[in-house]
């Protein structure tokens, strides 16, 4: 009987969660820039261009493949559609020095890096696994999320960004 109760509870909670995600916004938390200065994540919103947050860590191999792919493509993409990418590391203070050193040594020079040292942003978005990519519209509404990475996922991500740049974007609901 207890098992049935829990099953009912979880199904109910999942049903609750589904409509909620359509109205999700970027949480009001702080991350760090490479010089350890606190930055309010919502201050990145400029009201003009969408942004992509690509969550990674220095010990996550698929994350590095995703950052390689984003670095390779961002130059061409941003000429087609104006948008910004921020790579957000969730390395804690033990591996932070490595995470700060890696972008230069890996040639990830196409977009800025941020550091979610206390995992406040990860918790705010309920991210439990990485790689995790989030597309956010110009007003801070979350338009698309994707867990995991396989070659070609970056193209799907860019398609979502392009949707936000179309004139009808404001009327579109999230997939």
């Amino acid at each position: 009987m207890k098992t049935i109760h829990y099953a009912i509870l979880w199904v109910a909670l999942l049903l609750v969660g589904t409509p909620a995600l359509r109205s999700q916004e970027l949480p009001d938390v702080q991350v760090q820039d490479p010089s350890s200065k606190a930055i309010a994540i919502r201050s990145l919103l400029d009201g003009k261009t969408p942004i992509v947050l690509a969550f990674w860590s220095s010990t996550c191999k698929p994350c590095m493949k995703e950052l390689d792919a984003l670095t390779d493509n961002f130059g061409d993409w941003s000429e087609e559609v104006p948008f910004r990418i921020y790579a957000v590391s969730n390395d804690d203070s033990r591996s932070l020095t490595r995470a700060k050193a890696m972008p230069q040594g890996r040639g990830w020079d196409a977009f800025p890096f941020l550091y979610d040292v206390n995992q406040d942003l990860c918790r705010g978005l309920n991210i439990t696994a990485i790689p995790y990519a989030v597309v956010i519209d110009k007003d801070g509404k979350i338009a698309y999320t994707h867990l995991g990475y396989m070659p070609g996922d970056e193209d799907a991500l860019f398609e979502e960004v392009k949707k936000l740049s179309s004139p009808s974007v404001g009327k579109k609901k999230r997939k």
Partner: protein
Amino acid sequence: MALALGAAFLFLGAGSARSQGRLTGSFDSNTIIYTADPVTHTEVSPDNRYGSMNYLKLDYGAKDWGAGLKMEYHPSVIKGFDASLKGGSLTGIYARWGKTLGGVKVEVTAGDFYEQFGSGIALRSYEDRELGIDNSIGGARIALSALEGAVRVKVLGGFPRYGIGSMLNSRTTTLLGGADLSVRLNDILGIDKENATLLPLFTLEGSFLNRHEGTVPSDIEALSRAGGFSVPSDVLSTSARLLVEKGPVSLSGEWVHKGRDLTSTHTLGSLLDWGLGDGDALLLGASASIGNVSATLTGRQLRNMEDRMFRTAGALTEGNTLNYLPSLCQMQTYLLAGLNPYTTLARGERGVQGDLYWRLPRRSALGGKYGMNIHIGGSYIWALPVALSNHDSPAMAYRDLNFDIEKKWSPELRTVLFISIQENSPSHGQTSRTDAQNVFVLDGTYKFRGSPFSIHAELQYLYSQELTRDWMAGVLEVNFAPHWGLALSDMYNHGSTKVHYYSAMCSYSQGALRAELSFGRNREGMVCSGGVCRFRPAYTGGQLTIKYSF
């Protein structure tokens, strides 16, 4: 009770659509159906036919406040996990309030929360579902941040969680109390803006944590009587940290002292040899980036730094932990390179680890048309002598040297050559015997142009004259981005046991949902996550994993 909570969140969820609140959450499920396998001598009995561990987390946030809950249901614990996790319960609930008052950002949390002081040597309350660790603290936490984050203070008190009890009753009787302070000196002294180009940035931090155990378990009491010592009810840990940053160069240091605590006097933690002792730790780090090259160097020494949430003379489980002592060496991601991972010797260890990353740019002589990445990393770790060691000077416990070169040949093809040379002392320096292994990997990914179709393949070889001698492995993945992935892999020990460890996996991703269905044979060994490892017995079976965030 469970249904009442479900109804409460149903109400909250409906409310979120009307108000400005945000409801987020995640669902995580991992189920394995075990099958008997005569090759690995694994059997299935009615009480261990399957393992299933399931997690649901919900967070609701409005302008100044938030609340959340976490539920777990583990009808049968997956092999290798702490048996105390069996059952189902509401394992966490919290309410949070935050506001900026007079330039000071105040955040108050009541209920269950996670916290980390520094690098986690003194305290790390966290969750790792790969390891079965969730030592969230049930109590209260106040965090203050002033001068745009230049001064941050955290104060906490509460009881850490262990296993699954009845509803909201998974707490130990151990009471934690502590505080952490972080100060960016340049901002405080007002020298940042005026001399930003001349002076480095200094950040000074420190913390203390008291662990109070009011009652001494009978097995510990018997040990202390036999040893002629009295176990203290309070253990105080203090730490000091300094971070110095100047452009692309950073230096960091952390020193931790742990007060007198029950500790094993044997390197390997024999259950028979106990005593009292202080603990201390020193962690030093340096990193620098120049042009296309970046380097990091980390050194660490530990002495008696194992910190459990409650004392026991019985088996020590991964879940019974209060701090974070990951192995210093590189975390290996290839199958054969991670076959025999090194685990930290909390009772006495000294080590150094370094990495060098070099990006050869596009259209350079060595980088070619698309550029190339080179990484060299290595570590050397010594076991420090403790009271009952048979060596009186540091002895080699582990060393490795890793080299990988990643080359993009065309928009479609990217390859990686990886070599890892590893040597491990199975007795942690107690004897002169070491096990050496050399691992070679060729990794290639081909992405068809203008198509979501890609192929990834790995060929791996492990050469060793010790343990189970030589291994070979192959991985083949076929991906149809962004939804479908298929993978086949096989590890074959042709040097000794002649056993194949095969796996077939299909995954589906849709936004923040990812589901994986796999079947395979898994060898006995250590499973590591974030540098911390747990033992996993051999098993053969099918596995379904679902992860979903919303």
